[in-house]
């Protein structure tokens, strides 16, 4: 079965086509967010790989945490394609996919995505045969808080992701037990999405489309305290 992967949760926009056995092709555009390129890149990829959209048997999409705009475009594009083509969809956490990209390490994995404005999205993982498992749930914190969490954990750490690169100096203060993954692994790969999702789809572990929604870690249930505005209105 051919699976389409769409990953837009970081400033890297990527689409990939493949199965659990091989990646047929992947187009990755980096540097800055270019969500408008998702559909043109997909069209190009279908042409180059000689795949007809009707042959695609499933869609995999990165759910974040990550950039708002990218996630909205990526998730909506994936859901629309799944619905129109009548094929199953699988949503995967971007930090999971990022950690999966370096699963061959024996170190504990800190997957770190730049959350902008001085914060990072991160999750801590360890590798197991065939993949990675979460040791902490995805969270949004300052890089210093991430380091504080890592420091109470024993053993060596591999920091991966564009957040790990951006805050290299902060994380490096942990000393020699932290190492940094290559920049080539710094963004969740669309090909990794395809690989993970293809295995799930073969086991018929689909997600309900209604459950495929972006992961926004910055949440608030509060109402804005509008003392000032109320005062104006009564003036």
């Amino acid at each position: 079965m051919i699976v389409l992967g769409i990953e837009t949760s970081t400033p890297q926009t990527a689409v990939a086509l493949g199965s659990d056995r091989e990646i047929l092709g992947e187009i990755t555009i980096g540097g800055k967010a270019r969500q408008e390129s998702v559909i043109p890149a997909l069209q190009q990829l279908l042409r180059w790989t000689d795949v007809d959209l009707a042959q695609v048997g499933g869609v995999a999409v990165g759910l974040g945490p990550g950039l708002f705009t990218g996630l909205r475009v990526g998730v909506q594009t994936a859901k629309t394609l799944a619905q129109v083509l009548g094929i199953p969809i699988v949503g995967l956490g971007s930090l999971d996919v990022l950690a999966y990209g370096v699963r061959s390490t024996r170190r504990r994995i800190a997957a770190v995505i730049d959350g902008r404005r001085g914060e990072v999205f991160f999750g801590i993982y360890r590798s197991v045969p065939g993949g990675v498992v979460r040791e902490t749930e995805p969270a949004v914190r300052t890089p210093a808080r991430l380091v504080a969490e890592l420091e109470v954990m024993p053993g060596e750490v591999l920091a991966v992701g564009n957040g790990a690169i951006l805050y290299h100096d902060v994380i490096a203060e942990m000393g020699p037990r932290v190492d940094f993954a290559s920049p080539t692994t710094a963004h969740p790969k669309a090909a990794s999405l395809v690989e993970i999702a293809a295995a799930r789809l073969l086991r018929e572990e689909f997600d309900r489309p209604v459950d495929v929604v972006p992961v926004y870690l910055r949440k608030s249930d509060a109402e804005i305290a509008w003392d000032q505005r109320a005062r104006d209105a009564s003036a």
Partner: protein
Amino acid sequence: MRLDLRTDTADDTRAVGAAIAAVLEPRDAIALSGDLGAGKTTLVQGLARGLGIEDQVVSPTFTLVREYRGRLDLAHVDVYRLEHEQDVVDLGLEELGDGLAVLAVEWGDAVAALLPEEHLEVELTTEDPTGASERRRIRVSGNGALWASRWEELAIALAPWGTTP
């Protein structure tokens, strides 16, 4: 860190904005507070001029966000019409201008917890309740290392309007 200023005209208030712009760096955030008509948008117009933005800056009250390109990009935000903090979160402020824009947030004091921790606060007050006078008091406050390192430079830039020695 705090500076108390006084301006006599709207142009004067714009000049304060332009002077603040001179010390700004990408990703800086400014929370503007003050009653309706206190001159928040006027100050942002000066800020934009100081950032080399040629487009006309108008109030973003109904569009929520307006983005401008300049020496540094500017994202001018107004949260006045929003009710829930999540509405502010959903604006994705940290992504505006590819994450590099200077953020100027009107009524930012009401959503301070959702802004970058070390933001500059600019509070405008008018002494004339009829609104006829253009005279304003402007209090500029900064917190944290980010502003401590620039405070002297900012104080010098704003000295012409200072009311404190």
